[in-house]
């Protein structure tokens, strides 16, 4: 087939698709779209919450665990996984750069409600000690990168880095008041340390806390930024784990039963 014929066929295909984009369906109206988005929210939020709790649970949970080494490395890695899977699914199926943000807005109310009901009302930990981190601003940036680059490879590198930095900035703003020093028990501690000691956690002796202890290294005191860069790198790996989940565990099994035009 000559080039002109190929171009003609492609143009005809585009015209058919343009008609399909706006085709009104008698029985599948926008209510179905709303039902889909709302009902999927519980599964997506739960999946992201479970993944986050399994990999980075305590760091997301307590203010005295939100340190400058482990928190920025593990938490964005844990959060990006399900968001990445949803990015792939939603871009493939609808060309919508919404996967990461949708995951974030599904996660936030579930995580917050869980903390408030279980840890606030049931056990009476103060909410300023057990607030969950937010990934919404980070998700917006990652989705923006996908829409601009239209490439999952570029999104995995640039988008993951932007996700990790955006996540850290949005959550550091919240932890900042709790990093102020205070004199307590004849020591200088942060407000978050005092929260961890004063609000009893009977089965979590302090030595179980995995935070920065200090090692021989030459970062000139810029530990935080080195952790951020490493966290961004680790987030790339998390992004591709999410891509694997989206491609191999979600889309590929469905694709075996769906008709492709």
């Amino acid at each position, binding site marked *: 087939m000559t080039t002109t014929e190929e171009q003609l066929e492609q143009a005809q295909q585009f015209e058919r698709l343009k008609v399909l984009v706006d085709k009104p369906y008698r029985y599948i109206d926008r209510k179905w779209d709303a039902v889909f988005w709302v009902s999927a929210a519980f599964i997506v939020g739960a999946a992201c919450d479970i993944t986050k709790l399994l990999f980075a649970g305590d760091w997301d949970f307590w203010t005295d*665990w939100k340190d400058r080494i482990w928190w920025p490395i593990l938490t964005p890695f844990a959060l990006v996984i399900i968001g990445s899977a949803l990015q792939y699914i939603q871009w493939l199926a609808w060309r919508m750069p919404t996967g990461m943000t949708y995951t974030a807005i599904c996660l936030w109310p579930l995580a917050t409600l869980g903390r408030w009901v279980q840890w606030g009302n049931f056990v009476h930990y103060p909410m300023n000690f057990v607030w969950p981190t937010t990934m919404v601003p980070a998700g917006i940036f990652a989705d923006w990168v996908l829409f601009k680059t239209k490439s999952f490879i570029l999104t995995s590198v640039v988008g993951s880095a932007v996700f990790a930095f955006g996540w850290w900035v949005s959550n550091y703003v919240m932890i900042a008041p709790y990093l102020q020093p205070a004199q307590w028990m004849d020591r200088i501690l942060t407000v978050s340390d005092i929260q961890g000691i004063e609000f009893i956690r009977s089965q979590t002796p302090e030595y179980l806390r995995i935070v920065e202890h200090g090692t021989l290294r030459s970062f000139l005191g810029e530990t935080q930024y080195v952790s951020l860069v490493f966290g961004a790198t680790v987030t790339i790996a998390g992004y591709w784990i999410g891509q694997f989940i989206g491609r191999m565990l979600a889309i590929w099994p469905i694709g075996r039963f769906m008709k492709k035009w």
Partner: protein
Amino acid sequence: MIKRLAALLLLGMATTVAYASPASAHGERSQEAFLRMRTIGWTDVVFSGGQRHAQGDIVIAQGEKFTIKGVAKLMNTWPDTLAKGLPRIGYINIATQGPCVAMLERKINGVSTPSRIEITKGNYYSFEETLMGRRVGRWHVHPTFAVKGAGTLLGPGQWIRVTPHAFSSPVKLYNGKTINLENYHLVSVWTIQVIGFLLGLIWIFWWTWWGKTAKGNPRRTVTNPAVTLAIPLNDDGIAVGLNTKKDHRVVNIIALATALFLLIGWIWQASAFPVKIPQQVVEYEPPKTDLDTAPTLATVDARSAKYDYQAKALRLQVETKNVSSSPIQLSQFVTSTLTFDNPSSGSTAYGPYQDTLKLSPSGTIQPGQTATLTIDLPGSRFNDEHLLPTGESQLVIAGLLVFKDASGNKSSAEMEEPLQPHYIS
């Protein structure tokens, strides 16, 4: 048939929920007896403060303080199965149902101790914890000694009743400002989270509801695969009208607004909280106490530990030599959470974790003299506390024998003896 089976199954599950009683205390009894006896010896544990209720509870108001004082000995009989036989890091705390009381001060061997300590087998750790009533209710509170690589050992507990009263948790910052730890900056945390959430909602609503296709029709979701599966993955669908240049403009605006929001937040935290430090790790070795250096009054060699099932009595026989220059008398036998007092030495049993022992011969042991002491202990107390290791992998009774001399000086000696659970003839 299947429906009946399903209904029966549901009913069965429902009854387990309906009849489940709340678990609120004494979980330490589920730990193995021989481990509890061989690890920490709790002596002189006293709860003070508040009012005493008729039932023995301590009644305090929210915000009112009370104190737990005592001595925990890290016994030389520490088993090899825990922390590889070498306990190094410990944490003295309390066990209760969450933050129903708040820790205000903790002193170990006279030194304020916010977190973990370096520990050595055979040493004494004198603790004083000042706590505050926080949550209304009736709570069981134990002092605890957690050891890294092993777990948490509980001392004798006390019921604490917290009554309603206005309270706060004041903490003084480096800049002199006093804050309330209960709600410090809670509003700013929620504000930042809610604003972020709203930005995300705007993004999603644009793509799912407000946004339009190239022809100005509402954007669809469920029916789009008919189009999207026919175009390449790196095609954003502008050519077929799925997305538009307006979408690009809108996402740029939302992303910019988000970046601006984070920038404002960053500037705010940098100016509002100019001094910040990372979370602190405090670890040190407490100084030795007088108990560590006090002269030994007696050496002991346990000869037998027999349990009579019918009489419910535990009989210990211990050969004791007075190595001091003053007559001594057995004052107490302490094992895990239980303390047994010898009334003839002047010790009086009080509290739910104390009882009396019968000693024979009951008198003093003269300097240089060796006596074989027969100590009869009420087995029912061991039963109640699950401290009889029958059915466990090590049939051992261990504890501290506390001796007192004529001047009132005390010293303790550890004993450990295989348990022989058969009849006393």
